[in-house]
């Protein structure tokens, strides 16, 4: 109880900002749903029913879905469904509703954990800017629709925060959960490895052992899922092999990128350019010697890119390192504007950028509105 009080006291401001951003996001969503005569259940679409089938009936024994009968819910990692199943039992909710509620709870927690992360990695960027960037961007939709994005962001932020604080075993334990959230979660092991290699020279032998254990813990969630799949249906790699049902067979990611850049379709071109921007952000992180963030994002970008450009926005804009760079960029842009128009420098020790970024919020909300409408109309570009 004392520690909770201490936690609340220490984090009062960040908690308030997180809650405020989350409430605005939820109010905006409620407004869109109401105006369009839709309900919360309409949000459970595309992958969400697959997760719901897992919550209700567990993992399939054999493939059955799609026209070729080759789709199964093995592609959908277990961490979110386990928590959603607890939520269904605790509150007697249907599986789709429980998934939506669970993803929203993780979304709130993810905003707070992202603010904590940003305080460590980019302390000069205003927490309000970071919260708005996360809660009001056009792809924040995915935090509300029974997908794994919010859980992924939460656990990646917690793991990266623990890593920066030198708590390798904690980072590895959280990483173990992350690797059971979605396949790209396993790349947190690269972040641990990069940090371990960087700091092992000055570490004691016990600290080195902790680093090693942290790195070994990170893929544990994925490995347990593989063992489960083997026990369930005989193929430990079924989560990857079943991707053939969605025609997402891995190949050279840069071929997909090039093909997208030359595409006639505007959405595909946009996703390709987003991927290029993401790779540039990763290069920037490497240049800043933020190896842990860079390695995590490199894996989390190239793996989905290897299976095509579809759904790239949600794979990119729920990655903590990329969001940090984005927040930094907006903040730097605002500083430049201030210097040009007001002509004063800030006292960078104590002051955040002036909130000119608020001018971007209406554009961002317009984008979010557009994404919601596309989702409700089941347009393929928001899959």
């Amino acid at each position, binding site marked *: 109880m004392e520690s909770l009080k201490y936690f609340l006291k220490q984090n009062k401001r960040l908690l308030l900002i997180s809650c405020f951003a989350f409430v605005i996001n939820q109010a905006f969503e409620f407004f869109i749903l109401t105006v369009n005569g839709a309900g919360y259940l309409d949000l459970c679409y595309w992958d969400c029913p697959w997760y719901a089938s897992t919550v209700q009936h567990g993992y399939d024994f054999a493939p059955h879905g799609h026209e*070729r009968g080759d789709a199964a819910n093995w592609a959908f990692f277990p961490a979110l469904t386990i928590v959603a199943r607890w939520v269904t039992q605790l509150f007697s909710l249907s599986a789709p509703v429980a998934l939506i509620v669970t993803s929203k709870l993780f979304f709130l927690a993810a905003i707070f954990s992202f603010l904590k992360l940003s305080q460590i990695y980019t302390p000069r960027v205003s927490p309000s800017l970071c919260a708005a960037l996360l809660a009001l961007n056009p792809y924040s939709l995915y935090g509300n629709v029974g997908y794994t994005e919010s859980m992924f962001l939460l656990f990646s932020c917690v793991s990266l925060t623990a890593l920066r604080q030198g708590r390798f075993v904690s980072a590895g334990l959280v990483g173990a959960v992350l690797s059971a959230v979605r396949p790209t979660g396993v790349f947190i092991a690269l972040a641990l490895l990069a940090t371990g290699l960087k700091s092992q020279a000055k570490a004691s032998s*016990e600290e080195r052992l902790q680093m090693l254990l942290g790195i*070994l813990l990170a893929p544990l969630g994925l490995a347990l899922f593989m063992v489960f799949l083997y026990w369930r249906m005989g193929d430990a790699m079924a989560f990857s092999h079943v991707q053939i049902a969605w*025609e997402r067979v891995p190949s050279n990611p840069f071929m997909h990128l090039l093909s997208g850049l030359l595409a006639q379709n505007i959405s595909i071109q946009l996703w390709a350019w987003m991927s290029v921007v993401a790779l540039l952000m990763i290069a920037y992180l490497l240049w800043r010697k933020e190896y842990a963030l860079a390695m995590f994002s490199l894996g989390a970008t190239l793996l989905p890119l290897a299976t095509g450009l579809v759904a790239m926005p949600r794979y990119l804009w729920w990655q903590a390192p990329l969001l940090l760079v984005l927040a930094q960029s907006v903040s730097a842009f605002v500083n430049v504007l201030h210097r040009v128009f007001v002509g004063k420098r800030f006292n960078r020790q104590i002051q955040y950028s002036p909130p000119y970024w608020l001018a971007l919020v209406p554009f961002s909300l317009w984008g979010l509105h557009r994404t919601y409408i596309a989702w409700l109309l089941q347009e393929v570009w928001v899959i």
Partner: protein
Amino acid sequence: MKAKSMLVLAALVLCFFYLAVLALLQHPAVSDEYRRYFITGESGLSPAQVGRLQALEMGGTLNFRSDRLGFDSWSNAENEYRWSLGKTPKLHFLVDSPQNAEALKGLALRFQPHGQQIVRIYVNDHLLYDEQADAQGPVIATLSLPPALIRQGHNIIRFELPNARMPGNGDPRVLGVALFELVLNPV
């Protein structure tokens, strides 16, 4: 010292566990059909497709959604056609008796090439069609079947599409021809 020993022990346990997982990866306990479709990619016909394939009824037309064709390395059906995937898509079909095998004298395939395509068509590994096709309009490939080429049981129409390629619009599929229908014993 005790903490160090615990760390070493935990690391060793994890290493052994991962080795066991690697061993499981090497030995999937699945059917041959599953292995050939999902793991090695030797077959483009899913186990469910194999299970529901029905024998041909002589005469008539089978469209791109027919249950009597096994679409091996073909995409999901669209509204009017079905795209081939890769350079060697196949169509599997079953013939339930020697009489029916003998009765099948010819086939006609109607398809739309994806741009310029060299299209070779084999029936049970015999080359019966070799043409260059372009995207001006649908192509009808009429195949005259030599006696005894069609057999009772499993038969395969195999395409060779060396120019199949990604459409360049971000679609990661390697497309060759869009199939509309297969006519049995065309007049």
